C-alpha cells in the first residue's frame, strides 16, 4: 500500500524542508520526499496549496481511561485526535487507578492498540497514586513504555519529593513533566486572580502560584541535571524564568496550550464553566508574553492539555465545575488562526512546536518525514475558514470555550501508518 501526496507545501523541521514537492509512503513508512516523485501503484493525493507535514504530536492529553470513561475513552480520545491532525499523544496518568505502575501502563497501551487510532505514549505518575509522597517504581514504568513521568493535575507540592524524583529520573534519562502549581498559593481559586476575579467575586489563583513552582523546579533541574519539561506555562514571569534558565544552560523545555495564547481572563465574564481551566486563563500581558515566548523559542511545544469533562459536570455553578478544556480537535485551527496567520510564528516554527520538538522531548519515533519513519502525515489547508461546532466533535466531551469561533486553517487529511484515516 503506497500513497503519493503530490504538490503540497511540504514542511519537515527535522531537515529544514519547506518546499513544494511530493511525499511517498510505502509499507506504512515514509519512502521519500522530493520533487516529481512517481510510483505506479500508489494512490495519489493532490495536495496543491496545502501544508503537508508530519502528524501532530500532542504531548499533553487526558484520555481519562481507566476510570473516567464518561468523559473520554482511549478509543474516543484517540479518534478525536486523528480528526485534529494528531497522530501521537502522550496521555497523563491522573486516571483511576493512577498510572503509577506497569499494569496500568500496559492496560493503556493495550487499549490504544485495540483502538488503532492515534499512537499513545503513556506518561507515568511521579509518585504513588500521585499523592506526592512516595516515588512510583519509575524504572518499571519506563520499561513498561512510559515516555515521561508527571503528577499532572496533582502537582508534587513537596520540594523534597520532587528533588528525589528528578534525581531518580535523571538516572533513567526520563523527562519529568511538571504541572507547576503551588497548592498553598492556589488555594481554592477557580480563575486567575486579578481585576476580573475581583469583579466576578470568584476566588483567584495568583500568577505566583505557578511561578514559584516554575522557579523551584528549574532550580532542582539545574541541581540534578534532570530533563525538566514545564507543562502549560501561562504567565509572563514563568516564561521569563524559563528563558533565563535556558540561557544559562538548564535542561528545561516548556509547552503552552492553545487557550493560553487565545483567551484572557475576560472570557470568564458570564461564568461560562468551559472557561474554567488550570492553569487559568490569564491577562492580556501574559498572552503577549506567551506569543513572545513562542516566537523567540523559549516555548518549545504547543500541547493541548485536552481535558474532557461531561456536560453534567460542567453545567453547574462555576465554583463546582471541574477544570479543563477539550482541545484536541481545535488545536491546529487555533495555531493557524492565532499564530501563523497573524505572523507571530512562521509556519516552519509552528510545525516544529507540534511535531519535532515534542517527539524529541519524549524520545519517540514520530514528528518528522525522514524516510524510514512511520508514515504519519497530515495535510492542512491554511486558508480554509471554518467554525468550531462542538456538536461535530468526535471526542466524548464538548467542553470548549471556542464554540462558534471562526478559524482559518483546517486539517483536511490525516494519514496514520500510511493509511488515510481522516479526510475532511
Amino acid at each position: 500500500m503506497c500513497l503519493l501526496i503530490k504538490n503540497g507545501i511540504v514542511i519537515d523541521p527535522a531537515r529544514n524542508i519547506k518546499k513544494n514537492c511530493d511525499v511517498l509512503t510505502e509499507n506504512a513508512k515514509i519512502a521519500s520526499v522530493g520533487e516529481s516523485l512517481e510510483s505506479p501503484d500508489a494512490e495519489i493525493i493532490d495536495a496543491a496549496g496545502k501544508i503537508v507535514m508530519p502528524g501532530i504530536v500532542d504531548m499533553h492529553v487526558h484520555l481519562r481511561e481507566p476510570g473516567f470513561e464518561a468523559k473520554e475513552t482511549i478509543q474516543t480520545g484517540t479518534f478525536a485526535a486523528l480528526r485534529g491532525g494528531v497522530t501521537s499523544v502522550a496521555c497523563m496518568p491522573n486516571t483511576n487507578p493512577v498510572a503509577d505502575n506497569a499494569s496500568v501502563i500496559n492496560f493503556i497501551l493495550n487499549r490504544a492498540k485495540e483502538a488503532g487510532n492515534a499512537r499513545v505514549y503513556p506518561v507515568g505518575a511521579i509518585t504513588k497514586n500521585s499523592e506526592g509522597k512516595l516515588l512510583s517504581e519509575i524504572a518499571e514504568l519506563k520499561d513498561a513504555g512510559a515516555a515521561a513521568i508527571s503528577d499532572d493535575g496533582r502537582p508534587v507540592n513537596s520540594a523534597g519529593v520532587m528533588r528525589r524524583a528528578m534525581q531518580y529520573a535523571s538516572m533513567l534519562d526520563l523527562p519529568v513533566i511538571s504541572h507547576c502549581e503551588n497548592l498553598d498559593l492556589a488555594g481554592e481559586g477557580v480563575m486567575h486572580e486579578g481585576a476580573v476575579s475581583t469583579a466576578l467575586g470568584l476566588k483567584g489563583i495568583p500568577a505566583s502560584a505557578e511561578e514559584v513552582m516554575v522557579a523551584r523546579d528549574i532550580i532542582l533541574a539545574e541541581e540534578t541535571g534532570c530533563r525538566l519539561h514545564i507543562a502549560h506555562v501561562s504567565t509572563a514571569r514563568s516564561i521569563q524564568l524559563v528563558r533565563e534558565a535556558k540561557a544559562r544552560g538548564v535542561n528545561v523545555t516548556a509547552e503552552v496550550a492553545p487557550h493560553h495564547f487565545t483567551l484572557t481572563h475576560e472570557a470568564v465574564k458570564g461564568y461560562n464553566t468551559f472557561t474554567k481551566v488550570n492553569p487559568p486563563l490569564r491577562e492580556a500581558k501574559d498572552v503577549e508574553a506567551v506569543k513572545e515566548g513562542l516566537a523567540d523559542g523559549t516555548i518549545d511545544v504547543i500541547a493541548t492539555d485536552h481535558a474532557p469533562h461531561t456536560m453534567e459536570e460542567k453545567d453547574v455553578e462555576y465554583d463546582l465545575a471541574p477544570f479543563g478544556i477539550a482541545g484536541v480537535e481545535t488545536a491546529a485551527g487555533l495555531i493557524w488562526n492565532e499564530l501563523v496567520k497573524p505572523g507571530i510564528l512562521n509556519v516552519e516554527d509552528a510545525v516544529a512546536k507540534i511535531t519535532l520538538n515534542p517527539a524529541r522531548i519524549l524520545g519517540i519515533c514520530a514528528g518528522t518525514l525522514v524516510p524510514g519513519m512511520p508514515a504519519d502525515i497530515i495535510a492542512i489547508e491554511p486558508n480554509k475558514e471554518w467554525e468550531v461546532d462542538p456538536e461535530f466533535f468526535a471526542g466524548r466531551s464538548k467542553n470548549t470555550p471556542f464554540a462558534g469561533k471562526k478559524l482559518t486553517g483546517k486539517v483536511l487529511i490525516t494519514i496514520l501508518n500510511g493509511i488515510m484515516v481522516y479526510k475532511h
Partner: protein
Amino acid sequence: MTLRGKDLIGIEHMSEMEIQYILDTARPMKEIISRPIKKVPTLKGRTVANVFYEPSTRTRTSFELAAKYLSAEGVNVSGSASSVSKGESLKDTARTLEALGADVIILRHPMPGAAAMMAQTVPFPVVNAGDGAHEHPTQSLLDLFTVQEVKGTIKGLQIVVVGDIMHSRVARSGILAFKKMGARVSVCGPTTLVPPGIEELGARVYNNLDEALDGADIIYVLRIQKERQEEGLFPGLREYARLYGINKERLKLASSEAVVMHPGPVNRGVEITCDAADCKQSVIQAQVNNGVAVRMAVLYLLARGGEASSVPVD
C-alpha cells in the same frame, strides 16, 4: 418605564435611570409600610419563592415581609432542608420551582454566578439576594434609597467603604451603585482584604483609615467575619479594631454631616464601637426599614406582569 431585564442579578448591568426608577417606586412602598395596616393587594395570587442556600436573617425576613405586604404567596426553600442536600443541581431546583408554579425566585447562594445561572434556567424573574462575593443588588439599592432620604442626592458625595472588601458582595454592588449615581467611592482595608483590581470598578484604595475618612460624607462599615482571621488573612481582631474600627473619635475626621452605614449584622467593638453605631449620624436602623420598601419595589416591578401605568398606593 420598565426594567430592561426580567431579573435583578447585579448593579453591574443596570443604568442610572433604572436604579432611580426602583428608588422612586420604593417611596410609595415606604408609605404603605408606615400605615397601621401594611398590606396592598398588588401581587395577590403571585408566588414568591425564597430560596436561601446560606443563613440569612435580615435579607430573608425583609424579602418575606415585602412579599407579604404586597399580598404575594411566599414559600421558603432552604439549602439544607430541601433536595439540595440530596444532590439536586441548582438548575433542577430552578426547574422544580417553575413546575410548582413560582412566579419569582429570590436566591441567596454562596457561589458567584448562581443567580445568573438560575435566571437563564427559568422564564420568570430571579432576584439575586447575594451570590457569593459577587453582588447583592437589593442591599445597594436600599443603601442608595437611605442616602437619598438623608442627603437628598447622591451625586458628588464621597463614600468610603471600610473593611473586608475582598469577600464582600455588598462592597462590589455598593461601589458600582454609588459610582453610577455620581458619588466618589473609596475603599479602605488591610492589603490582605482588598482584592486586586478593585480600582477597575471605580474605587480609590486606601490602607490608612484616617486618610480615607478625610472629608467623607458616608462611612460604610462592613462586617468583619471572624473566620477570615482563622484563615490567616489578618492577624487579629484587636489589631483590626485598632486600625480599621470606626469610633466616635474617628468620625470627627469625616465631614461633620457624615452618615454611618452598616449592612448588618454588626460586630460591636470590632468594626464599629457602640458609640459610633448608635450615634445620631448612624442610619443603620433606617437601612433595615428601607430594605423592606426597596424589596417591595423590586418585587412589584419584576412580578407585576405587563405594564402598569403608575405605582399602586392601595
